[in-house]
């Protein structure tokens, strides 16, 4: 179903369409928020707030161009993140430290650390299970230092298919470990794209 159709049905009061739209957008909104905040827990909160705003808007008004809904959603998420940043900056300049917001923020920080820690545990295990130091270097250069595949292959003397195989296995194992820790939903099971 197209965004246009979903938007039209939500305007008409179709709750199932709201669920469909939510499922379709959740992962993307969360990733936009993670990218901008580096905070997994905060990203989930931003995602919820974004969805509430979007659904409220769609229930009340027709969009001028419903096919531009993704752009509208992305901008809404960004606006919420920038507002959150402004709020945090203001909080840092205040002298009082016992507000509910601050407590909530500390909690979110802990959540973020827990998610990052889980990722660290999983990636450490992935690296430790790789038999070749060259493969470990390959993985770190690609995923941490964001180096180009061609450069890494040339430096390490690795063929393109072998490069893909190393990353494919590493990603599959990483996902498996996170799933074991109950941290992944089924929609994360995407590791065919390298």
């Amino acid at each position, binding site marked *: 179903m197209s*965004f246009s159709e979903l938007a039209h049905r939500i305007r008409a009061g179709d709750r199932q369409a709201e669920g469909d739209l939510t*499922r*379709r*957008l959740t*992962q*993307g*909104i*969360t*990733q*936009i928020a*993670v*990218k901008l905040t*580096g905070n*997994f827990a905060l990203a989930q909160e931003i995602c919820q707030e974004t969805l509430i705003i979007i659904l409220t808007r769609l229930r009340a008004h027709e969009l001028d161009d419903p096919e531009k809904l*993704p*752009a509208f*959603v*992305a901008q809404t998420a960004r606006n919420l993140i920038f507002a959150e940043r402004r709020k945090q900056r203001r909080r840092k300049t205040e002298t009082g430290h016992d507000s509910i917001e601050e407590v909530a923020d500390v909690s979110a920080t802990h959540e973020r650390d827990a*998610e*990052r*820690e*889980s*990722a*660290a*545990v*999983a*990636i*450490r295990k992935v*690296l*430790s299970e790789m*038999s070749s*130091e060259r493969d*470990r*270097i390959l993985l*770190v250069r*690609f*995923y*941490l230092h*964001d180096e180009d595949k061609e450069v890494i292959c040339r430096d390490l003397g690795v063929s393109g298919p072998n490069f893909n195989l190393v990353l494919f296995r590493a*990603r599959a194992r*990483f*996902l498996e470990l*996170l799933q074991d820790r109950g941290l992944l939903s089924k*929609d*994360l*099971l*995407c*590791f065919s*794209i*390298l």
Partner: protein
Amino acid sequence: MNDAPAAARYVAGRMSEAEIAEFESQMLSRPDLAADVNVRQRMKAGLQVLEERQELSEIIAGVANRRRRLLALAAGIAVAAISASLVVWYQRGDRTSHLLAIDAIDQGENTPSFLLATIRGSGPPVIDIPANAEYVELRVMVDGPGGYDVRLVPDAPGGITSAPGTDGLLTVALHVAGLENGAYYLSVWPAGKPENEQRYPFELARRR
């Protein structure tokens, strides 16, 4: 847009504002693309944590693995010491240790290592080894320092050697290539004192 390089460039922050807007719209339309970005961001976050803790270079070099094995060995020694202290009364005067505990210290790729200690109430353990394992390291709690002789029964055609450690454990290197699955026991006695033999039965099971 080619998905993989685009997702990589997005996570790396190497996109123009226009590219970001286009990519994010695509990501919102395609949960599979969002899932790919999710994996990349989590892997990156995990690696950043390791780098912040200055652990990454050691892990890449394989040093951290070896260190963890040593820690596991230390933990195993502690287990052995506790086990041994609990059963000294039980074993006194008994040459045959038919009650045996085993703790896998390290399941390395080619040389798995196990800790053997005698405790009450357990039967012969199963030493589970990878199909390609050539050697198994057995660490045995012995009564004191000095030389020990070891033997595998039935005989190990590939050979068996031992060396006392400074940690109160006797390290036995058992060549398992060619050994059939089945029941064995490790016979250990102080050099020149076969009457003080200790036996450590176990089941050898090689994974297919």
